[in-house]
């Protein structure tokens, strides 16, 4: 059984490679390469897999999930400039793909337990663009 919780955070970023020209950055990243950065209202959906506990009837305590998302996602990223304030984006480009991978790496160790596993995260950069990461081998 799957349980999904959604969380929002607003952050700015810029997608540029330091070792290529403005024109090449524009070709690679489009307006995402605008030098002074820009922002998004990111929406993250986190899907946890598990079976309901026979005593509590819950796959995961949503208060616990909420606290994890606050601590790992909203706290470090909301109203931040990702490139300057959130590691590892001082060294890698904060594309939606890389941001989703980083969020997976933050969340999987906390949600992969004896009872639950992180099944999927879906990160919306805008309502019309999102990245999914699904556990390898999942149906």
């Amino acid at each position, binding site marked *: 059984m799957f349980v999904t919780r959604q969380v929002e955070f607003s952050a700015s970023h810029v997608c540029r490679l330091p070792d290529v020209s403005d024109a090449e950055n524009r070709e690679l990243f489009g307006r995402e390469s605008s030098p002074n950065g820009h922002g998004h209202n990111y929406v993250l959906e986190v899907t946890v897999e598990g079976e309901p506990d026979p005593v509590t009837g819950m796959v995961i305590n949503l208060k616990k999930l909420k606290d994890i998302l606050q601590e790992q996602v909203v706290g470090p990223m909301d109203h931040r400039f990702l490139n300057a304030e959130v590691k590892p984006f001082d060294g890698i480009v904060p594309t939606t793909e*890389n941001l989703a*991978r980083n969020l997976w790496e933050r969340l999987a160790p906390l949600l992969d337990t004896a009872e639950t596993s992180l099944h999927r995260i879906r990160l919306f950069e805008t309502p019309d663009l999102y990245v*999914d990461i699904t556990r390898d081998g999942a149906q």
Partner: protein
Amino acid sequence: MVSVTRRYHFSASHRLHSPSLSDTENAALFGKCNNPFGHGHNYILSVTVTGEIDERTGLLVSVRKLDALLHDKVLNQFSHCNLNTDVADFTDLIPTTENIAAVIAGRLQKFWAQYLNGRRVHLQRVHILETKKNGFEIVMRAAAATKECEQEGVSIHA
């Protein structure tokens, strides 16, 4: 597995009518969608791409190139058109949303390598909402890691 999904919007009209059926049978089969004057929808098209993230750029797919493919080969021909009369694919094909999804998937596959690096990124899924209540989805099966995808099936959910 990582995927990127991009959502597009187009508005178009259509009429569902089979020339091999009588007017009475068409009316019974297609109901309001058989109205001789046609009718329209705001379609929402989602295209899902899979592949590997380029470690240098952090990109799985160039959204700009994907957008160019969609605009050049789908949206510019479908948007604000009468699908039955203005899009040649539907001259002899009823523009049900199942068929619209299949035509779009076929166009994307045909021009995929021209717009995108077909060896690295693959078309995984085409999903269309005809209305908020009717969704149609084609999921591709990768024939081989480096070959063009083939259509696996259409699933319809309401």
